[in-house]
Each structure stands twice: as C-alpha cells, then as structure tokens.
C-alpha cells in the first residue's frame, strides 16, 4: 500500500514537471471542444492529436492524449444538453434528460450535474485503475500464447456482440479488422502478405492512417450528408454543481461509476455502452423512474458518471493485457507504442511506475475538466454553432496531416482516404466501427499468439482449450457467440431462471 502511494506521488511529480500544467490546460480544452462539436469524436481527437505529440517527451505526449480523451468524453454532453445532439456517441444517453432540463430553463443546472457526475465518474474509475491494474497486471503475467489468443478473440467477440446491436455485423467488422492487420510482412518469415508486389503494402497499413480514415474521413462524409437541424438558443442559469444533487444521488454515482469502469475494462465496448447501461440500471433502481426521459437529474447523473468512469476503465486492459477497452483507448494504445512504450503484461515488471503515472495524468485531466466545466460555458456555446461547411474541410485537412506525419509517406494519405470511404460505406450498412478498430489493433496479438501456440504445442490445438484460463476464456467466447444466436439467449435466460428457482426452493 505504502509502495503504491509512493509510486503515485512519484507519478504526480513525474507528470507535473516542466510545462505539464500548460499542456494539460490546452489539451483538455481541445478535447472538450472536439467532444462538444457534433461529428468530431474522442477517437478522432486522440488520433489527430497523436500527430502533434511526435516530437514531445513520451510522458508529456501521453498527458496530452489522456487530457484530450477525458475532455472529449465530457465535452460531448455540452451539445447533448444544449442542442439535443450528442457531441460524441458516448453522450447519446445524456440527451434523454439533459435536453428536457435545458428546455425547462435549467441548462446551467444540467451542465452542473454533467460536470459533477463526469468528474466523480472519472475519479472513481481512476481509483479502480490504481487499485486493480497492478493486480490484474501480475495475474496477466501467467498468460501464455494460448491465453493471449483467447483474450484477443474474446475482445473481438464481445465487441462484436454488444457494440452495434447486430452481433453478426459486429463479428464481420471485427474479422475485417483482423484481416487488415495481416496485410504486410509477417513476423516469422518476413513474407509480404497481400502486397501484390507493392513495397508500400509490404510495409503494412499503418494503424493511425486507418483509424484517422475510419473515424475522421468517414465522419466528415457523414456530417456533410443530410440536412441541418435547428438548434436551441439558450439562456444559461448557474452552472455551479449543487452539493445536494451529489449527496442525494450518491448511490447512483457509485453504481454508475462501478458499471462504467467495468464496461470500460471489457475489450472494445466503450463509453456509449457504459452510459446506456448506467442509465438503464439507474432507471431500474430509481424511486422516480417515471421522471426519466423528462428531465431527471438522476438519469443525467447516471449517464455522465457511467461514460466518464469508462475512460479509466478502458485504460485498465491497455496497461495490463495490451487490449483496449474502447476505440479511443485503442488509439491511445497505438500512441503508447509509437512513443516506445510497450503496454501489456510485462509493464508490471519493466515499468510498474508507469501505471501510477497514468493515474496521475487522469487525475490532472479530471481536475482541469472540472475547472473548465465551471468557467467554460458561454464561449463553448459559440463554438458549438460553427457551420459544418466551415468546420469539416479543416477537419479533413487535419486528417491528412495526421495520416502523413507518422512516416511521411503519401501512401498513408491514400490509405486514410481508402479507409475513410470503406468505413463510411460500412457505417451506412450499419456495421459497427468499434469491433473493426479492435480487430486492427488486436490482429497482430492474435496472429503471433496463434502461431506461437501452435508451434509450442507441435500443432496440437488442445492446449487452447484445456489450460484452465484458456478454457474459461474459450467458454466465455462460446457463450457470447451462443447468446447472439436468435432464440438461444431467451432459452439460456429461461434455463438460468429455472436453475436459480430450483436452488432457491431446495430445502436447507
């Protein structure tokens, strides 16, 4: 315990050296603005800002990206409350009660609730990260190739099952992502797969150009299609969070924080699912459930706490297993790799202090977010209303810069363009993007560990199913797949109810 506190103190000292406070201030502001602007998501923000951090020291670079991530998830609630448009998909649940509150003349109070819920949510999630990441990290050291294969597979299956509403399309998106990761030279024989004689393709498709394409270019195209809608004009009352709101709903805050963190820690699910699940759980448990959807303070608090707690939660598997918990966390993980850090099980051995540095970064970002939440209302209202015709070309330019900057190849700009067009078409056909991103990120992990496992076992596949942790993970993957088959889910639920009912009826 004392060791942990010592490392946390050292983490703060490390993070706050030099001009870190300045970087935290501008990066969180950029994050909030990106999150607030409809059409710009946290994933896109972290991907674009990664470009800016190339020449920075790695701890400053990660502080910037963590601040952007935390700020963007929070910023989405501004437009959700004031415009009834979620700034990021994560804030969709906040529109349900945030906008009705704004229409009742309580926009300021709604933003105060959003600020306090989001601040407490991130703080709760960060505490969980500090407590559980080292433990999970040590446990993950026992994972070998067989287990890591299943971890990657579990990530794809759970993201496919839950992230888009149609598991079949989720799985297809996940495997398309896994395929993209196989393009280029493989590790064992340096054979260029799917290169067709091109030296550019033999180098593989860069993660960042693909992500910038899928989240940046595709979003620009989505934003430019369709008509504009009318926004509210707003008189803003006081945005200072009320202590009474926090004290009255402390159970909701704790529950949503726990749900958000847990969902964040599940590979590939992300903030939108965390917000919806927290909202649904709060509605089920609430004494004023009838107010939900009509301007419920508890509903808004639950959604905001859940989505913000998900941010640190999504970083837990990045640090312990090298598996991202959400799409922005996937980009953050890619940025860590670009800066020479190797997230994953070995982190607990090689640089255990890094986990506490991330904790310190999250707390700094959370505090800066609180500061902006209290002062940054009126200017943000103007930023929200920038016409898309003027904003989107600038975003597109930043996408091109982001794609080019990492290796200075024009080929990467073409990759970004291609990924953007394909991503847009897939999106139009309702294929979810989170499993696709997770597939691209986890492709290498799955590829190496499947082949390494097969080599170690001499071609025998049984260790993939018989080793205890592998067996549990394989069982979970099978269960998730079964549950996505129509009808099976209901039968499983009926069976579980029957089993528990029988157990309850059994005499002691």
């Amino acid at each position, binding site marked *: 315990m004392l060791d942990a506190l010592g490392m946390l103190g050292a983490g703060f000292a490390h993070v706050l050296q030099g001009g870190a406070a300045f970087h935290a201030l501008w990066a969180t502001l950029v994050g909030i603005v990106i999150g607030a602007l409809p059409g710009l998501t946290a994933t896109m923000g972290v991907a674009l800002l990664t470009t800016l951090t190339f020449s920075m020291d790695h701890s400053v670079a990660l502080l910037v990206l963590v601040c952007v991530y935390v700020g963007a998830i929070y910023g989405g609630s501004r437009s959700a409350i004031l415009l009834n448009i979620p700034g990021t998909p994560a804030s969709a649940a906040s529109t349900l009660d945030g906008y009705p509150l704004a229409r009742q003349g309580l926009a300021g109070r709604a933003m105060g609730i959003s600020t306090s819920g989001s601040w407490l949510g991130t703080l709760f999630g960060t505490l969980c990260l500090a407590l559980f990441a080292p433990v999970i990290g040590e446990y993950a050291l026992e994972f070998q190739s067989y287990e890591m294969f299943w971890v990657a597979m579990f990530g794809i299956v759970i993201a496919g099952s839950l992230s888009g509403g149609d598991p079949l399309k989720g799985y297809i998106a996940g495997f398309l992502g896994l395929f993209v990761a196989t393009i280029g030279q493989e590790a064992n024989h340096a054979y260029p797969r*799917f290169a067709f004689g091109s030296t550019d393709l033999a180098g593989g498709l860069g993660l960042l150009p693909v992500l910038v394409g899928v989240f940046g270019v595709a979003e620009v195209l989505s934003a430019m299609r369709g008509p504009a809608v009318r926004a509210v004009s707003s008189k803003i009352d006081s945005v200072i969070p009320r202590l009474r709101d926090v004290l009255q709903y402390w159970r909701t805050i704790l529950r949503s924080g726990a749900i958000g963190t847990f969902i964040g820690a599940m590979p590939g699910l992300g903030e939108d699912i965390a917000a919806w699940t927290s909202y649904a759980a709060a509605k089920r448990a609430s004494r004023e459930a009838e107010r939900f959807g009509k301007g419920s303070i508890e509903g808004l608090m639950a959604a905001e706490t859940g989505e913000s707690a998900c941010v640190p939660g999504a970083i837990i598997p990045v640090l312990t297993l090298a598996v991202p918990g959400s799409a922005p966390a996937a980009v953050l993980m890619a940025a860590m790799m670009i800066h020479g850090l190797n997230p994953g099980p070995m982190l607990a051995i090689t640089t255990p202090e890094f986990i506490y540095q991330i904790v310190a970064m999250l707390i700094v970002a959370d505090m800066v977010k609180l500061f902006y939440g209290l002062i940054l209302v009126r200017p943000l209202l103007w930023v929200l209303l920038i016409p898309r015709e003027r904003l989107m070309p600038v975003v597109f330019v930043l996408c091109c810069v982001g794609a080019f900057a990492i290796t200075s190849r024009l080929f990467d700009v073409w990759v970004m363009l291609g990924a953007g067009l394909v991503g847009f078409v897939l999106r139009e056909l309702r294929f979810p993007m989170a499993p696709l991103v997770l597939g691209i990120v986890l492709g290498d992990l799955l590829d190496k560990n499947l082949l390494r496992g097969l080599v170690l076992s*001499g071609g025998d596949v049984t260790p993939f199913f018989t080793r205890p942790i592998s067996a549990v993970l394989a069982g979970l993957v099978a269960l998730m797949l079964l549950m996505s088959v129509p009808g099976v889910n209901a039968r499983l639920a009926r069976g579980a109810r029957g089993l528990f009912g029988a157990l309850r009826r059994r005499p002691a």
Partner: protein
Amino acid sequence: MSGSDPAAPEVHSPFAGERAPVSPRADLLAAAVLLAFGLAVLALSLRMPTFAEQSGTGLTAPGIVPGFHGTVIALLALVLGLRAVRRGALRGGAPGPARAPRRQDALRLSAAAALGTLYAGFLVGRLPFWLATALFVFAFTAGFEWPRGPAGRGRRLAEAAALGLGTGWAVQLVFEDLFLVRLP
C-alpha cells in the same frame, strides 16, 4: 429558452438515423461482396508459401491466420445473406424499412467525397501544402454555401477565402514550426 425557435442557428447531427435499420436488399448485396472478399482472401492465403522446410512443421505458414479470417468472413457473410433472404431481400417491390437516400444528400456526399479525393489524392504533394489546403478549404466552403442564394454571397466567398488561407497558414505554423511535424 425554446426548442423550436425559428431564428435559432442550424446544426447538423451526424448521429441522426444511426440506429435506423438497413434494407434486406442492401444486406444481401453487402453479404455477396463480403462472401466474394472472404473467398478471395482464402484463395490468396492458400497460394502463400508454407515454409515447411524452414520451420519443419509448416505451422508458421503465413497463410494460416489470414486464411482463417477469410473463412470466417465468408461464413458470416453467408449467414448474413441467408438472413437477408429470410427477411425478404428477394421479394420484388418490397421497399424495406431503409431510409430512401435523398437526392440532395447524395449530391452533398458525392461533392464532399470528390473534393476530399481531389485534395488528398492529387493536390497534396504536388502543390505547396499551404496552397493546396487554402484551395481545398475555399472550394469546400464556397461550394457547400453556394446554394444559400445570392444574398450575402460576396461576403461568404470572402470569408471562405480567408478561412482557406488562414487554415493553410495556421496548420503550417502549428504543425511544422511549433510541433516540428513534417507536412506533405
């Protein structure tokens, strides 16, 4: 505070309609493309060398993993196609629940994609970056604001030009001079 204030500014929701279902026919078409894609990946994977002599077992063959992915994509595409048929993709005349894409939307989308491709694919790398950026931002903004009518068009064009030049200059300054990032 009012939600239907006619004087309120317009904002676009990029997430609107995200949950609207897609028509079975579109699903069937997607399934056909994905099936062909999965089978092509599988075929190309099978044609890759196995390196059995070097590894002794052939278990490190480069085609194993992509072959597995191609097979799964093909199988899932098959299920998607069958589901689409069961939902009425082959029934003639059934429009399905999909949103009929409006002509205006298609035009805006095509224009955005064409301008983006022109900029990223042809202008970047051939012209100085600031100039390519200024031209693109000006063309994009002016083009999409053109249908607003002749009233105030001159001012809007001037603003678009200023935005283009400002973006080119600011990106050059922030990325290349301040953060030492190379530009195309």
